[in-house]
């Protein structure tokens, strides 16, 4: 049986298990001895029947390829099996291709290997089917024994559900930890060749390293300061756009707008967050940047065709919904009694907003702004397209600057050696970026949590 048929078999047997378990519980229910509802006993029996069988099947599917690989190796004569690993790999690939083809091969050795493989595959399939069937059935039989009734079925089910939930959150956590560790170790390899202080405090970024020993070329300098300055410059411009626009529109939407306008305007504003960043990117590069250059030239300023200003403005527009949506939520969450209390004292609406509502919602607003800031710092596509590649240490928004994310992209596109400092520098930059946004997120979460306690 193939795996989908096996899966159906397990499902069917679990269903049967459910009904037998429930029926048995019903018959005991007449004596009034049950510790949970009959359906709980049904579910518990189904779990006994289904879960071990499913686990077995999963493990089998994962382990089967390596087992079959071993089978092929064993079937090969020593003369071939003792070759160097590269040639052997090629040989086995041929065999695998032939198996996938399904056709017969003239070479007797390969033919023998194929036959052995098919034999082993068949055996394994029969064995698996038999085992799964037995396991499922034994679950049902276990459920049919008298023991079932003495179990707190509901508690067992809840424990199993809890275990499943722990597993799911575990997957997310393990993935995060894995990414962080891999970035960390690669970054440490980078710091073996480039000193940490040169990286952190160097003001010159030119990551060109010689690819061949005889090639002329610089040894590269990896001072990350210009990148971080560029990132901060663009993020600052973006925040200068997003915070006032976002906050004021949130105040309008939550305090002044009619319910009808709000139901239309809020989703429309949030639509901004749904525009792909690459669209923002070419909008910035093809529309905003030329416009700024022409506007600057008309008043006698020299503006680079890729400027921090263009990228920052467009990025600011992109993160408006982060600020406005979160601020709107926290402003709306300020209890109506606060407004009543202030209005009842003879405060005007704007006095109430300025002196009661905004202070009360401030922690939440700050949280939203920090989340938007971490989004701006990590944003890549807009800056790749609109901010340029020149790692210039400047605070002039009309210059072309580059950011951490842009440099990571350029370091890792094209052919690269995996152990050159140039490639590894990307991991170091990634680590720094990750640390920055992590700190911002932690601060934001901390502030938001503090806010929640305020009215309880």
């Amino acid at each position, binding site marked *: 049986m193939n795996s989908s048929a096996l899966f159906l078999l397990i499902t069917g047997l679990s269903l049967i298990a459910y009904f037998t378990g429930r029926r048995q519980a019903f018959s005991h229910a007449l004596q009034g001895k049950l510790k949970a509802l009959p359906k709980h006993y049904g579910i518990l029996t189904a779990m006994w029947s289904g879960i071990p069988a499913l686990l077995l099947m999963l493990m089998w599917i994962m382990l089967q390829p390596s087992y079959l690989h071993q089978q092929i190796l064993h079937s090969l004569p020593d003369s071939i099996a003792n070759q160097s690993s590269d040639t052997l790999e090629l040989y086995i690939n041929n065999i695998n291709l032939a198996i996938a083809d399904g056709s017969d091969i003239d070479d007797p050795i390969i033919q023998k290997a194929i036959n052995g493989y098919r034999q082993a595959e068949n055996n394994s399939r029969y064995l698996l089917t038999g085992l799964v069937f037995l396991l499922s059935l034994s679950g049902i039989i276990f459920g049919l024994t008298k023991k079932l009734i003495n179990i707190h079925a509901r508690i067992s089910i809840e424990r199993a559900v809890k275990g499943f939930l722990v597993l799911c959150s575990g997957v997310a956590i393990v993935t995060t930890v894995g990414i962080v560790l891999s970035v960390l170790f690669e970054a440490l390899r980078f710091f073996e060749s480039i000193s940490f202080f040169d990286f952190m405090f160097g003001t010159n970024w030119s990551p060109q390293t010689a690819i061949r020993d005889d090639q002329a070329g610089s040894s590269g300098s990896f001072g990350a300061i210009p990148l971080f300055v560029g990132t901060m410059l663009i993020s600052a411009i973006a925040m200068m756009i997003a915070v006032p626009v976002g906050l004021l529109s949130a105040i309008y939407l939550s305090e002044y707008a009619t319910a009808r306008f709000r139901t239309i305007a809020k989703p429309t504003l949030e639509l901004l967050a749904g525009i792909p960043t690459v669209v923002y990117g070419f909008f910035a590069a093809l529309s905003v940047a030329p416009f700024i250059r022409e506007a600057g030239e008309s008043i006698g300023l020299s503006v680079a065709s890729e400027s921090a200003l263009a990228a920052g403005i467009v990025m600011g527009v992109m993160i408006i919904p982060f600020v406005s949506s979160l601020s709107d939520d926290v402003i709306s969450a300020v209890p109506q*009694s606060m407004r009543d*209390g202030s*209005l*009842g004292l*003879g405060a005007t609406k704007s006095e109430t907003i300025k002196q009661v509502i905004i202070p009360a919602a401030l922690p939440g607003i700050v949280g939203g702004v920090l989340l938007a800031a971490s989004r701006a710092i990590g944003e890549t596509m807009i800056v790749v397209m609109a901010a340029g590649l020149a790692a210039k240490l400047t605070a002039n928004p009309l210059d072309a600057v580059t950011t951490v994310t842009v440099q990571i992209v350029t370091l890792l596109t094209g052919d690269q050696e995996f152990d050159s400092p140039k490639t590894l520098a990307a991991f170091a930059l990634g680590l720094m970026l990750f640390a920055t946004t992590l700190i911002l997120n932690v601060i934001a979460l901390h502030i938001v949590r503090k806010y929640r306690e305020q009215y309880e």
Partner: protein
Amino acid sequence: MSINTSAKISQPFQANTEPMLEETSNKATTKSSDNKSDITIGENIIENPKFSTRNVDVFYDDKQAIFNASLDIGRNEVIALIGPSGCGKSTFLRTLNRMNDTIPSCRISGEITLDGENIYDKKMDPVLLRARVGMVFQKANPFPKSIYDNVAYGPRLHGLARTNSELDEIVITSLEKAGLFNEVKDRLTAPGTGLSGGQQQRLCIARTISVSPEVILMDEPASALDPIATAIIEELIDELRVNFTIAIVTHSMQQAARVSQRTAYFHMGKIIEVGNTSQIFTNPRHQLTENYITGKFG
């Protein structure tokens, strides 16, 4: 101004210790004609009132919440508005300082005057009105600021103090009048939300009187408090009567009897009966009032 009460006045007040079943059916038939009348029984109109409402109707969208309400509130008196839930007493209270303006679906017709000025006149600024007619809410709602700033909020808005020491004085007097100063004098900078429920409510009262209003509206100010905190608030209301006119909505009839001089009974959006508190509670003239205060419903 008692109207068509002849049928009832002849009938003596029945104490609720008497068997009620046959009484109820008996009275219901004799008084049913009164129930149809829209006219308020009792002394709803008085001389030289502070507040005066005439033929007030309040609507939420199409639903009418108040029907033809006419009620005067006298100077330096405490008037209790009682009645079953949903009878419109809170809505009525909120029309008096135009707090209902914040509800878009709310419409009001009729005439409401404060010292003879129509408060729904176009020239009347609701912001200034609310400074004259303060409000204490059912649930204590201190701002998330310090105790001091909570009380200083109103005076700062209206520029009542020119110097910091004047402001200090206003804050301290208000807290003293609200009977809270001794409990909080050592922690004026602590957050107002950290006080107990009863203290928070007294803080809100201090906040309200800090802007020296003429009238204080109280919407079930003690309904979320324990009996001891309630007793303190009730004493306070009695003291405040010297300086302010107070209208209080309450669900507790004992409270109404303890703190008020006059009582108005609301039923289904109508003011059924108005009179001296002692008269309302000992000798109600309307069947509905009697049913309510004897606990037959509500």
